[in-house]
């Protein structure tokens, strides 16, 4: 069944090269399969979303910044929450939005492969937060196993998407160490990925 309206937690405009090229608008979806201790958008796990929106309503909200996207090579970043849970909605939106927009997908990739297969051809850049490649650390931190993540990464590589992928490898206090980070990176390099964004969680 196609979703007519999807739950969102935020539409953040005028982001300057924070999560995608040029000027971007971040569309934050509500809902996530993971339950991370240091979730950066706790609202995505709250009982109710901020709003529900249809494809045409969202397109209207995005079109206002069309000239900025075109001028700077920017576009839309789907984040959240887990945007790939709403892959049908995203496909519908991408079918009607200007083709020049740069589309970035921020995802944990912990979704069924079918979700990914549908949207992957339309995405210009994936930013994938793998947490840690060690399945024990992953399970401890997110409460879920990472089988989907690994198989989806393999699918991306096998289907020629590895150049579009940036993999985020966080250093998570109390969960992994710099050595774990290096090991994760080595495993991913072995798989055929070479663009990484290593960073550290700062707990406040």
């Amino acid at each position, binding site marked *: 069944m196609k979703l007519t309206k999807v739950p969102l937690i935020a539409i953040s405009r005028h982001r300057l090269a924070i999560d995608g090229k040029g000027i971007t608008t971040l569309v934050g979806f509500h809902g996530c399969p993971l339950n991370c201790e240091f979730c950066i958008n706790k609202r995505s796990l709250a009982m109710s979303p901020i709003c529900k929106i249809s494809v045409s309503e969202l397109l209207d909200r995005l079109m206002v910044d069309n000239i900025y996207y075109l001028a700077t090579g920017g576009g839309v970043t789907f984040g959240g929450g887990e945007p790939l849970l709403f892959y049908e909605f995203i496909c519908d939106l991408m079918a009607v939005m200007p083709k020049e927009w740069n589309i970035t997908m921020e995802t944990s990739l912990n979704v069924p492969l079918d979700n990914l297969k549908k949207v992957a051809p339309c995405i210009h850049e994936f930013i994938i937060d793998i947490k840690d490649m060690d399945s024990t650390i992953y399970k401890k931190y997110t409460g879920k196993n990472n089988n989907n993540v690994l198989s989806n990464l393999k699918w991306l590589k096998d289907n020629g998407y590895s150049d579009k992928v940036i993999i985020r490898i966080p250093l998570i206090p109390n969960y992994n160490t710099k050595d774990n980070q290096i090991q994760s990176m080595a495993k991913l390099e072995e798989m055929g990925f070479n663009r990484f964004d290593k*960073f*550290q969680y700062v707990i406040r």
Partner: protein
Amino acid sequence: MDTGRKICDVLKTIRKQIAEMNDIVYEPKVCHYKGHCHGSCPACEAEREYIESELSFRKSMGMKICVTGVALGMLTSPYNVNAQSHLDTPVNSTFFNKQKSSDNDNIPQDSVLIKGCVKDMLGIPICEAPVITPDGRYLTSTDIEGNFSIYIPHDSPLTVRYVGYETKNYSFGDLDLSGTNVLYLPKAEGVLLGEVVVVRKKNVRKEIRRIGRIRRREIKYNKRKGKASFPGGDTALQMYLANNTHLAEIAQNESNVPAQVRVSFYVLGDGSLADVKVLNQCPLRIKEEVLRLVKSMPKWKPATDSSGYIVADLVELSIKVKGSK
């Protein structure tokens, strides 16, 4: 400057560039709002709508419009600069280098790591300023503290730019390979906080001459008014140089050592030094020692202009190398 105002400035500059490319008469309104800026407001949205309506009109008249890519170079910074700044390795630049290497393995073997910080006239760090090689192959951007680090090919110059500031080019010889390069970006002429000065095309030459006159006058005033000075004056400066230098020892093991080394730098508004540059030819170890000596100086007393405002000041010093051959 808060993030909102920075966003507002960037959007304004983009609108201006689009207007210029499409011959749209556009003069951004001067913003007098003193509170927290969210990056856009009803006045900004009205300006955007005006540009859009002008573009639509031109399109409907069958005219060619030019929007795509007109401000492509403005925002070159990669992702999540703030998060990456916690790392002690140059993540931003390696990120891009890795990307390039996957294509054609083009990272030069003799690449050099350049570290630095970009500051404005008052010594305030400029965040998210692109730092780039002229061919655009190697780029990074400054983090929230103005810091950057980038691998560049040996002998490659480096360009730093930012919206509202003059673009500055640094030759490879000007860069300190072992220490931190504090780079100073002066404000661009004609751009003030919260407003953009627009000049009619036919008046451009006149305007350039006018700005030239003002600049010459300002330089004259700056010379006449309080110049930047070392704390304690010239005597204290000479004592500092004499007591802290190892030039004499280094010079004994080097050949072609000049009798003195000339060095130039800017004293910024907070008294810190930027763009420290050795002006004459000398052995690398001598150059490194001079750079170390100058960079470890205490903060200077900044210069003031004719109105008493603090300004950045260019200082030139000659440092004697005792025992030179």
